């Protein structure tokens, strides 16, 4: 079966497919590719089939089981689900089963979707390769010696290699978009506040958002529609109307203004990446979009500012993992302080420790103004840059990552090399804007290249619409990776 989420949904609604059969198919796909990809941290066969059977009972009795009835979905392991472990790929909560559920997950479940697997990530979302997982390293289905990107690498790899499922990831500095680009799928980081963060294990609270990784912008629109909206458990969720995203994404883009900022095509961008994105921009121009240059003078400072802000928040957000009320507690602690220090030292991986240390440093007395406060001021300048640019155009187009997926291990020796990969994605998080990555071709090595669209706050529909217009015209998003669950090569 090689079909879209819409096909799965419609077949179930039409009674041509049972929820159980859909779940079985999804489980089969995940079980088939997972030995090669290590994308799922847990496959929830028993629980998923139980849920599906219950849905089938309700469907049979004529109940209205929700708009996504029977559609299988996967959840990144830093998002709370009632079954399956929510570990953030960290030893410090390696056996943690959340006693409550994230709002985004609850909304999908209440719409009738069935969670079939939890997916791998860089520990607590800290990384761009999924190599920083305490559980296992996920592989890229296009080239299994290469990373899938990160931190939502599990979701991206699984999405790429399977069909007909929803995948939830989270994005703090590019963690949905960059793996989406590396795995040749479409990923949306919604506007900050569009989707509730309740139940998302915080990395950097002011930057984190939950979003979908899918095969098309329309599938992303469907997931967003089901998840978005104000939540009484997250006061940073915004009370702004939830649009019919599928409908609004389906409109054409003639007359839309697209901005190109030279600052988002910096020197480090690989020439093949640059070429593919430029070709894609030509396609959009051909669809009636007007293209003009805009300026984001402070964008080059985004990554350093991001490194400081995200680490500062992380150092505080991860303080709760101290071995007292939940999670790992060291076996040998003479006193309370030793218990804290050893539990945390044993539980966190090296990259998480690095970020905690940097974060504690930039907030500590004597350094706050020079680093943290400075970064917040730069953040303000970047926000203002985008406000100005997006006053002139409807969206800004740029590459998602300067490079394509890199070989596993290549950037592990120097964390700074890994940070550099985020330069084009972090501005969206700093500016709280919606941003989407979509495939726009392959490199000479056969690795996917992603193009990125930045939109105005709460205009998630606009980036979805541009992406959908592109995908209606091209077939990059339909190309199948060598490792896939339907035995297809080339096109799906």
């Amino acid at each position, binding site marked *: 079966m090689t079909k879209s989420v819409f096909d799965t949904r419609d077949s179930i609604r039409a009674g041509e497919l049972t929820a159980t059969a859909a779940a079985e198919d999804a489980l089969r796909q995940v079980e088939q590719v997972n030995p090669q990809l290590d994308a799922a941290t847990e496959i929830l066969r028993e629980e998923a089939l139980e849920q599906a059977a219950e849905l089938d009972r309700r469907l049979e009795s004529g109940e209205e089981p929700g708009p996504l009835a029977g559609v299988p979905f996967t959840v990144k392991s830093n*998002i*709370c689900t009632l079954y399956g472990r*929510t570990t*953030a790929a960290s030893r410090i*909560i390696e056996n*943690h089963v*959340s*006693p*409550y559920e*994230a709002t985004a997950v609850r909304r999908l479940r209440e719409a009738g979707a069935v969670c079939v697997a939890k997916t791998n990530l860089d520990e607590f979302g800290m990384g761009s390769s999924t190599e920083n997982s305490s559980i296992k390293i996920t592989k890229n289905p296009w080239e299994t010696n290469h990373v899938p990107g990160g931190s939502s690498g599990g979701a991206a790899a699984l999405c790429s290699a399977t069909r007909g499922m929803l995948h939830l990831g989270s994005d703090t500095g590019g963690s949905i978009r960059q793996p989406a680009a590396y795995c040749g799928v479409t990923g949306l980081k919604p506007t900050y506040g569009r989707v509730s*963060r*309740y*139940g*998302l*294990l*915080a990395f*950097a*609270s*002011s930057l984190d958002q939950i979003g979908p990784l899918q095969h098309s912008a329309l599938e992303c629109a469907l997931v967003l529609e089901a998840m978005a909206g104000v939540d*009484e*458990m*997250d*006061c*940073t969720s915004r009370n702004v109307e939830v649009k019919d995203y599928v409908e609004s994404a389906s409109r054409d883009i003639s007359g839309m203004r697209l901005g190109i900022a030279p600052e988002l095509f910096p020197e480090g961008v690989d020439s093949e990446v640059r070429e593919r994105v430029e070709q894609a921009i030509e396609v959009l121009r051909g669809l009636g979009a007007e293209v003009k240059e805009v300026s984001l003078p402070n964008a080059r400072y985004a990554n350093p500012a991001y490194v400081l802000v995200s680490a*500062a*928040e992380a*150092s*505080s957000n*991860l*303080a*709760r*993992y*101290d071995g*007292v*009320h*939940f999670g790992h507690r060291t076996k040998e602690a003479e*006193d*309370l*302080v030793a218990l*804290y220090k050893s539990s945390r030292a044993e539980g966190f991986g090296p990259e998480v420790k690095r970020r905690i240390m940097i974060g*504690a440093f930039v*907030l*500590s*007395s004597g350094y*706050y103004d020079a680093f*943290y406060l400075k970064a917040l001021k730069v953040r303000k300048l970047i926000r203002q840059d985008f406000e100005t640019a997006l006053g002139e155009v409807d969206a800004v187009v740029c590459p998602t990552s300067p490079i394509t997926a890199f070989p596993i291990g290549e950037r592990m020796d120097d964390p700074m090399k890994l940070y550099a990969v985020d330069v084009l994605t972090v501005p969206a998080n700093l500016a709280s804007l919606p941003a989407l990555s979509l495939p726009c071709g392959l490199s000479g090595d056969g690795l996917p290249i992603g193009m990125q669209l930045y939109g105005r706050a709460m205009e998630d529909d606009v980036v979805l619409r541009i992406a959908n217009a592109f995908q209606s015209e091209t077939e990059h998003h339909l190309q199948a990776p060598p490792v896939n669950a339907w035995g297809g090569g080339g096109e799906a």
Partner: protein
Amino acid sequence: MCAEKKLDPLENSAYEAVVGLEVHVQLNTRTKMFCRCENRFGAEPNTNVCPVCLGWPGALPYANREAIEQSLRAVLACGCEVGEFSKFDRKNYYYPDLPKGYQISQYDQPLGLGGQVDFLLDGEKAGVRLTRIHLEEDAGKNTHVAGRPVSFVDLNRAGTPLLEIVTEPDISSAAEAGAFLRNLRLIMLYLGVSDCNMEEGSLRCDVNVSIRPKGAQHLETRAEIKNLNSFNFIEKALHYEVSRQIDLKERGEEVVQETRLYDPERDETRSMRGKEAEHDYRYFPEPDLTPVTFTREQLEDIRSSLPELPAARLQRYTSELGLEDYPADLLVRDHEAAIFFDACIELYPKARSAANWILNSLKEEANSRKTGISSLGLEPGRFVDLVKAVDDGVVSSQKGREVLKPMLESDKPVAEIISELGLEQISDDSELREQVEKVLSEHPGPVEDVRAGKKNSVNFLVGQVMKETRGKANPGKVAEMIGEILSA
């Protein structure tokens, strides 16, 4: 209050004390500050908890509007400046009663800055300036059992709203600290924002103490004393700590800046070992919450809706209602009594009678039941009926007290209780005259004395009449009648 007066170490000393307080007031919202658990004392441990106040991974705070409104009432009542923008910050430190590893508090933009609390100290006007008032979440509670190497953690209190009131180091004695705190407590009670129950910990206080040569202007190294949960302990701890610091200086040693714990059993303060000496709370704005902003109009609305505060009430009782200073002060200090009193004088404007009856008889009844006046369940209307009955001579003041008890035990009208107990005064003059004449004829000696001008004998005769009538005569009237008869 009733503590034995220990010798004040500052008396005849070359030093003076410089004291500042950090007062914590638990707000009495229905739910906690950042989650929807009940804000209640006394529940089974770890049952008023949820993912948010347990600090579970992924949970987020959501601020309680009522807590902010209550805080603003307190802030405005204390005369603080309120900025148009305020925010919450994270204060990062590790402790088992703090499940998130940080406390949501307020750092550089608290709800209130400045302010002052005025009060009377030994009849003199005094005032303590406030530095700031901010709103934060309380921590849980750790308990220890002797002989076991563990501590128990209860998070019921974690996340409950707590107002922190910080004073300038304006206080120079234990008595002044006590007077300030009592007055602050009263203000909070009047505002209805806290029950300020020290036993249950809803009013707590840390004390910063240093000493310096008398008359000096500079501040010297201070010690902070924690764990003071009664007025008595605060005064004792201050006395102990000041003595300790004087002894140190006299021996040529230095006071160390540290946190000390008051041990009421040994009546001493001890250095808190084991706490990391170096603190660096790494405050930063709480990204999970939105800032709070106020318009001048909103603040004005709150200010104008503040209830009458203790100082204004005292003023009204003395100058408008004509109460003496002493009973007026007693009423004001007992918020429940003051509320009851105000309800009574709405119905019956003889303020002195009502005050008298409340402060003597009614408070006695409340005290004997170890409760407050409001818990007696007495309707002000029924109480006024009794006061009126006494004022009108229906029942004697003495017998009136006997009426009060059954009033508290049944809903019967006051008149009915008086008549059931047969306590009405003899209002029929001819009946009374008969009794008086009988007594006069039975006591010719005293009658002679009265005629000779001995006033005391009138009282004796009145007493005899009261005895004969089993207290149902109006003594004033009896005396008048005796005078009439004997001068005839």
